[in-house]
């Protein structure tokens, strides 16, 4: 089997020689053929060295002088070897237009079949890239997003609850102190009447002390729990209070 570039070279050379032997009125003149043959040979030399761009230029010059379709085929090969599939596909198709029944028409069709999906994918990629660039350009032209809203200050509701609990606890402690004093009198009661009177007082103060401690502790604990759970978020319930001549109002707001 003859290598593809060599076969082409032979085919083109033969074609140029044949052309040179044809009638002058309908064919390029001999000088043009000679120049075309020289460009062809120079192109072959570049091609064989892998210098496809110079080879393509020589082939193009030869084609311009000779109009030999096989040179278009060679031009397509140069584009193909130079990894320019779109130009290669276009050249192969041009060759088939010029010589649908040419000697390498079948080979050109195979190349067209091979390159067509590649070129289509390149086109699709290019289209997508252009769309992305258009999107980027469009985004670049949009106004910047607004800055985030400033966060609300931390809620003071837990603090208020803890303070209220502390106040209730303090009240319980006050009654505790009072009950301790009353208890001291109970222990030294001089007579039963004063004992029973102080005992009633002591029981009342003791109840208020225990109740104050219990309610205060529960309230403070509630405040602490709320402080580390619900009210830990910035967007937490807000409490506001207003006192008017007509009454008082407490508002609980929850910003979402």
């Amino acid at each position, binding site marked *: 089997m003859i290598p593809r570039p060599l076969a082409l070279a032979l085919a083109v050379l033969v074609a140029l020689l044949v052309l040179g032997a044809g009638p002058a009125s309908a064919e390029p003149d001999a000088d043009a053929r000679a120049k075309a043959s020289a460009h062809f040979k120079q192109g072959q030399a570049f091609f064989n060295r892998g210098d496809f761009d110079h080879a393509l230029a020589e082939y193009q010059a030869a084609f311009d002088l000779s109009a030999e379709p096989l040179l278009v085929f060679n031009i397509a090969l140069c584009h193909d070897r130079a990894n320019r599939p779109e130009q290669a596909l276009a050249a192969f198709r041009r060759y088939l237009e010029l010589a649908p029944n040419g000697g390498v028409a079948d080979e050109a069709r195979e190349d067209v079949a091979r390159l067509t999906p590649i070129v289509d994918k390149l086109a699709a990629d290019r289209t997508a890239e252009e769309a992305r660039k258009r999107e980027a350009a469009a985004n670049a032209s949009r106004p910047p997003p607004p800055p985030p809203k400033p966060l609300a200050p931390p809620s003071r509701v837990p603090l208020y609850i803890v303070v209220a609990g502390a106040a209730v606890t303090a009240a319980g402690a006050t009654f*505790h102190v009072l*009950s*301790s004093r009353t*208890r001291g009198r*109970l*222990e030294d*009661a*001089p*007579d*039963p*009447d004063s*004992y*029973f009177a102080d*005992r*009633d007082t*002591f*029981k009342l103060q*003791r109840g208020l*002390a*225990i109740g104050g401690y219990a309610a205060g502790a529960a309230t403070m604990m509630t405040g602490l729990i709320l402080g580390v759970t619900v009210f830990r978020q910035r967007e937490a319930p807000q409490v506001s209070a207003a006192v008017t001549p007509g009454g008082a109002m407490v508002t609980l707001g929850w910003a979402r």
Partner: protein
Amino acid sequence: MKARRMQGSRWTPGLAAAVMATGCFSVPPYEPDNAVSFTASAAGGGTATGAGFALRFADGPGFHFPDKLLIDDADVMGHDQAQTCFNEDEVGFRIVPTARITATGAAPAVKNLLVPALRGPAVTQVKLDWATQFNCDATRAPGGTSTYTMFPDGRIVRFDTIADAVSNEIVPSKCACETPSRSEDLLFTISTHWTLARTSFETLSFDSNTNRLPDDGQEVAANFDATCIARDSYQVAVAWPASMASPMGLRTATRGRASLIEFRRDLDLGASQLKAFSYDNSSAIFIERAGCDAAFKRANEHARPSALTINGTSMKPSIRDGIYGGDAGDGLPPGIDLPDKRAELSGTVNSSFAVWLRFPGSTDAIHATLAGKTGAWYMPQQVDDRTWIVWFRDPIGAGQTVTVEPR
């Protein structure tokens, strides 16, 4: 166990704080300066304490009968363990000629349980369930209950039951703890006694005279209901209810010993054999500071108690605890029922006295009134949610009416 101990020590501060807090919130009981109280000891005995006096019940394996009577912190009880084994010593019983039944006596204790029944402030009462066993016949195990009821003014009422239901006959010669030197001690005699230290007293009164203390072996004051042994700073009267004297065969006597003075009441069986028997006896001692006349006045209220009218019903104090409405010995709970939630007390009682009242419902506090009286003239003590004992410091006279009602 080590881990448990460590855990316990870790929690100790918290527990201590909790206990302190709990104690801080507890209602302190009414405990005036002259209140009586009882403190049990870990060894089975205990001490009943009042203002200026205390009666200690013995610890240890011996009977938990009293072994000390403290007046102004000095023990005035008689102690003479070197004497004849069946003679009186301290406080207890004798079944002559067997070993005396006292805290340090030689009689074996087969039952010996001291239980506080009332803990003050007005009345402290402890009961000693005891039993012994004769060395001559193991089936004979006499025993009983001695109840000591103490009041704030130094009145100590003692009630004894002693019985033996077994009828096996025993004879003194085989049961004597030592050979009696007196012929009368070869006959069984059951006796209950108090003894006081000779060195703690100076005089003895049982009639209109003030006598010196009886000599060793000298017996005086036979069948007197009350006697008073005294020194300058304090006096002690001993009383025996007249209602339990003859014809029941009971005889009171006071006798001097080398180091003590004995006060006893005998059940003279006069028998050379001892069959089943039962013997109850009441006595009381009164610690006084104002002289024997005042002591006699109080002692006579035990020997011949005055009647008190409570809501129209005249009654005398219980011979068992000295309290109006107290233990009647009928197995029913003490207390005078007050269907109207109110007690009106009238009559003449020549000494301090106490009443045991039961209100119809739960009563948390009570109040007593008597015209012209204020302050600590009475002392309440709650027994249970409905029942109260009220001790009145002063006598009550004709025309006076004390009212007790819920507060």
